[in-house]
């Protein structure tokens, strides 16, 4: 009657796995709901998770995929810097040093030790984008900065809370070094509260199962993640695969492209992503520390192996990353890192491009690959200072079985919704005149790319100063298997009504008066497959909807649309 009187182990493991993912989900909800800055409460430029005592990610919540690697890195760096015995219950530490934990100054990682029965059991980690941490320019980043020291307050492994209470000296240090102290301190409080949520939930799990069972389950969760990833790598044919692309420039040396070269080696159940041929670190602010190389490689690896699983460290065990020091994505001090996100999406996409011959049915054509951005700062009608940025979406590449998606954030970003125009206009002295799909931007193909995005806004006040930063204007979103390139990212400004539109890619301290307009355009995705193989019905539907003009259709799909085919390339008229 009573056969096996033991708990079914795999059910306990499944329980712990779900519960950890749920804990991370709760942390995310809390940080987002209590946050002050649109970068967190709207764009969700934030990442949360639970890591074990060795710094391995046990669970994290969807947010910004590119924040993955540093979840554990900040804990490992904490051990290296502070030792393993320093942590006490109620502590919260913070770090934002790109050379140890990746990304840029703006992203502060806070983490708190999780104690159970007097011993360390793991950490809760939250990393979010602070709108301003001082430095030479509002927003703490600029295309013209060339050293980390110009980019604001760099803090490495300092204690922010002790025994559950904030350290007033740390609060003064951070508040005094920000142009937006209320927002930054409010966002930090929200991060700390989320850490506390993570602590409580993990402690409850430990209480329920006891430390040995919890640790056994945690090991099994990682081992299971590892098995899933290995099974996926095994399905990719062995070989050495390389690809290359480039960024337009580093923002300082404007005529020098930055080569992005990657090599992927697939061997049995293991994959190596090698950045040895990558560009050397630059003067311009597109760099990040070695954790950046890991984050980029992991992001790409996850997409081609276990895309549907909530991420844990096990999913990355079959991956080896080679990044010699001193590259753009493994930079050494004093490299400027403010615009590190310039590099990430294109590098991820280049890894996919390398793998496309090995897994043609799994890889889409190239996407717009950047975060075209306008950073605005000024004073609102109440005299309060604001610093605001919003990433621009664009088109993703055509797929082996369908067209690419339109006007969606790049690979750097994920569950990161935009700021509604109705909210934005209440926050900033601007009027958005157009927020639309950019017609004729998609690369032609059997499955065309997704359409790019166009936004035009007009300034109401005169006190605003702006930075525009747009890359991937010269390296077009590539097609695959015969598909054509999409149109690139671009931007333009108009000084006043009737004035000519001036193209601009990277420019700092732009000062414009009321009535001036800014246009930002995220490019279209590349096409997949020969345009000649596209169905006539699909071409006709595109023309009818206005996704593709009749003229462009006659050029890209000759003989399929009534009217004379244009004989010359009509170029990219803006």
């Amino acid at each position, binding site marked *: 009657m009573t056969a096996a009187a033991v708990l*079914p182990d795999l059910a306990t493991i499944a329980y712990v796995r779900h519960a950890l993912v749920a804990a991370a989900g709760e942390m995310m909800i809390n940080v987002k*709901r209590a946050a002050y800055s649109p970068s967190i409460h709207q764009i969700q430029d934030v990442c949360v998770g639970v890591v074990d005592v060795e710094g391995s990610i046990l669970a994290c919540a969807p947010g910004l995929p590119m924040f993955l690697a540093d979840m554990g890195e900040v804990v490992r760096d904490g051990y290296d810097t502070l030792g393993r015995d320093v942590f006490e219950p109620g502590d919260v530490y913070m770090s934002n040093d790109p050379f140890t934990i990746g990304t840029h100054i703006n992203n502060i990682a806070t983490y708190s030790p999780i104690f159970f029965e007097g011993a360390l059991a793991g950490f809760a980690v939250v990393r979010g984008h602070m709108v301003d941490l001082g430095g030479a320019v509002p927003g703490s980043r600029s295309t013209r900065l060339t050293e980390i020291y110009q980019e604001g307050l760099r803090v490495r492994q300092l204690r922010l809370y002790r025994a559950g209470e904030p350290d007033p000296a740390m609060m003064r240090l951070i508040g005094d070094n920000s142009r937006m102290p209320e927002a930054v301190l409010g966002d930090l409080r929200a991060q700390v509260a989320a850490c506390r949520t993570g602590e409580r939930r993990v402690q409850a799990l430990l209480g329920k199962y006891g430390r040995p069972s919890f640790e056994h389950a945690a090991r099994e969760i990682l081992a299971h*993640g590892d098995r899933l990833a290995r099974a996926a790598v095994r399905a990719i044919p062995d070989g050495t695969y390389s690809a290359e692309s480039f960024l337009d420039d580093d923002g300082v040396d404007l005529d020098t492209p930055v080569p992005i070269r990657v090599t992927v080696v697939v061997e049995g159940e293991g994959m190596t992503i090698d950045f040895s041929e990558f560009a050397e670190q630059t003067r311009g602010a597109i760099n990040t520390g070695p954790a950046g190389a890991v984050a980029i490689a992991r992001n790409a690896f996850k997409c081609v192996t276990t895309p549907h699983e909530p991420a844990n460290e096990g999913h990355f065990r079959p991956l080896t990353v080679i990044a010699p020091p001193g590259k753009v994505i493994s930079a050494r001090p004093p490299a400027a890192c403010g615009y590190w996100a310039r590099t990430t999406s294109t590098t991820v996409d280049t890894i996919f491009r390398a793998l496309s011959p090995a897994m043609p049915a799994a890889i889409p054509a190239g996407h717009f690959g950047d975060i075209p951005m306008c950073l605005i700062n000024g004073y609102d009608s109440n005299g309060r200072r604001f610093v605001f940025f919003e990433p621009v979406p664009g088109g993703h590449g055509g797929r082996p079985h369908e067209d690419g998606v339109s006007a969606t954030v790049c690979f750097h970003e*994920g569950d990161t919704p935009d700021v509604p125009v109705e909210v934005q206009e209440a926050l900033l002295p601007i009027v958005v005149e157009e927020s639309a799909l950019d017609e004729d931007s998609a690369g032609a193909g059997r499955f065309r790319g997704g359409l790019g995005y166009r936004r035009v806004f007009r300034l109401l006040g005169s006190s605003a100063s702006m930075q525009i930063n747009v890359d991937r204007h010269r390296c077009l979103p590539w097609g695959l298997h015969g598909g054509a390139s999409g149109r690139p990212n671009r931007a333009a400004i108009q000084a006043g009504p009737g004035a000519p539109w001036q193209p601009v890619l990277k420019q700092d301290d732009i000062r414009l008066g009321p009535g001036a307009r800014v246009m930002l355009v995220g490019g279209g995705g590349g096409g997949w497959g020969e345009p000649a193989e596209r169905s006539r019905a699909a071409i006709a539907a595109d023309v009818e909807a206005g996704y593709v003009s009749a003229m462009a259709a006659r050029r890209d799909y000759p003989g399929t649309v009534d009217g004379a085919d244009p004989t010359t390339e009509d170029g990219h008229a803006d």
Partner: protein
Amino acid sequence: MSWRIAVDIGGTFTDLVAWNQDGGALVRSKVLTVPDDPVAGVAQAIDHAALHLPDATEFVHGSTIAINAVLEERGARTALITTRGFRDVLEMGRKSRPDMYNLFFRPRTCPVPRGLRLEVGERMAHTGEALTPLDPGEVDAAIAALPADVEAVAVCLLHSYANPEHEQRVAASLREQRPELYVSASTDLSREAKEYERTCTAVVNAYVGPLVAGYVGRLRAHLTDRQCSAPLLITQSNGGVMTAEVAEREPVRTMESGPAAGVTGAAWIGRPLDFGDLIAFDMGGTSAKACVIAGGVPEVAAEYHIGGRVSGLPVQVPFLEIVEVGAGGGSVAHLDAGGGLRVGPRSAGSIPGPAAYGRGGVEPTITDANVVAGRIDPDYFLGGEMRLDAGLAHAALARIAEPLGISIEHCANAVIRIADTIMAEAIRAVTVERGRDPRDFTLVAYGGAGPVHATSLAAELQIPRVLIPAGPGTFAAYGMLVTDLRHDLARTLTGVLDSIDPTTVANRFNELEHEASAYVRSRLEGGREASIRFVRRVDLRYVGQFHPLTMTVSGDVDSDFAAVTARRFHVAHAERYGHSAPEELVEVGALRVTAIADVRKPPAEQTSAAESGGGRVSVSRRVLYGDGRWRSAAVHRRDQLRVGDTVAGPAVIDDPASSVVIDEGDRATVMDGAHLLITVGAAA
């Protein structure tokens, strides 16, 4: 005779509960849903219950017609008129990739093709000031450009929530020039910012409008044919009802009517029992749902996504804050590539259904695991009307037990426990995530599968008490009988709490109450007399924060309003997020008012058993419990238990529409109203 009749159409079954207001008992019936002709299913349910329709004084109804039209993309050919420069907002959405590692991520298909999204020149500011006047010529041109086959038009202009004048003029022109079209203006449905969400609200309303209007018309014709002159009421997602005429104009408010009615029912039966706060838990064939009822009132969200957050359509209409997870009786258990055991979210549905149904299903489901575990009696499913095949359930479980190298029983237990952990997540989402401890709640479990899992789920979450209502299988229809007439209104009012004049707040609340009560009063008909009560709420946040907390305001707004409200806000913020900032300024975002007109509710039911025999019908059956042990469980029949009877675990209580599993250490007592109260484990 005066009957109030409630009918709930679900994916598999159409349920009816009726009450004779002249003092009779409740009547229930359950028939298979007729997907191609839902009115035929309603007719069968009425016939099965042997009801005489001319005796009906009220007919309350909820269905999945509107939500299925959205999920299955079968709505009307719909056009959209919007502000110049913004026609692609609907297609682009919020531009994110929630499924962020999926290279083939695809947002939902846009419900309005681009060629039917038309623009007009005009512009409002967020202050409500007209920056550019509406161009009547462009409005006429847009209307003239609508193709002949368009059936419905949504209108949503930028910042119309702040000033609806332009939008209402466009809608008026449409109605005047094209009276045959179904027209939805966003501001008739929502007065809140966020253009994508408000546009979606108007579009979804227009998209399902003709279908819902047609269905309501057919149902009304059927009722009229049968000499039923009772007013027809439709349940809403906010836990209220409205007249069929309003439902035809505002069907977007009816999307989640069944689940909402179940929660309302749970709140109603819980109130006199005085157990404090409740968790309503509904487990059906494809999903499980949870909602918190605090202080007798279900929680309300201002917005939700139809079809899930990742790729669903957001709508800005009040909705009982129900969290849904993909675990129901039909959810399929399977192995992933890493050898991990997974349950759901895919469901075998009713076709082919669980393997035990014997309709060709071969994959193991939660129902199959429950049959193997002895938790469901295959010979008493639906009171014996449908026999299940335990052999097929075993064979299905064997498909995953063998590769795992475990016994079939062990595997069944694992499937049940994993299902419990998934459902526990839904309950945690509405409790723990909001700073509440499930141990302070009573779990009210219903739906066909709810009672089967209720005690193991409660044990998992350390919930001390479980309440299984009378008639758990038709409980959503019962909830419709006890649902009040209700209307929610909100207006943006921004400013720092300290500097807002309390008189302004009081006046705004009074205006909103006046408007809401006029709305409710105009919809009271058929001799329904009722007094109207109000709930006032306010959205608050720290200056600089974005997301508000919505708090109930009790008492009059007087000179202490700011101080008292701020103090309560600091406490609520600390409770919700674990921190507060009493030194910072608090800001008002919006005022909200709910007007409620109560309906007459059925009295508590009596048990029907002639004498107390304990309802025990056979010696015992073997039941596999969550700790992996088989125990000999006493078997009882629900309809043979009387008020005051107690049943100690291990036991099962078979109900025609469900079974209640009671573990060792649990104790069930039959309460007033024929509800079962179970004290769980050590809490007993």
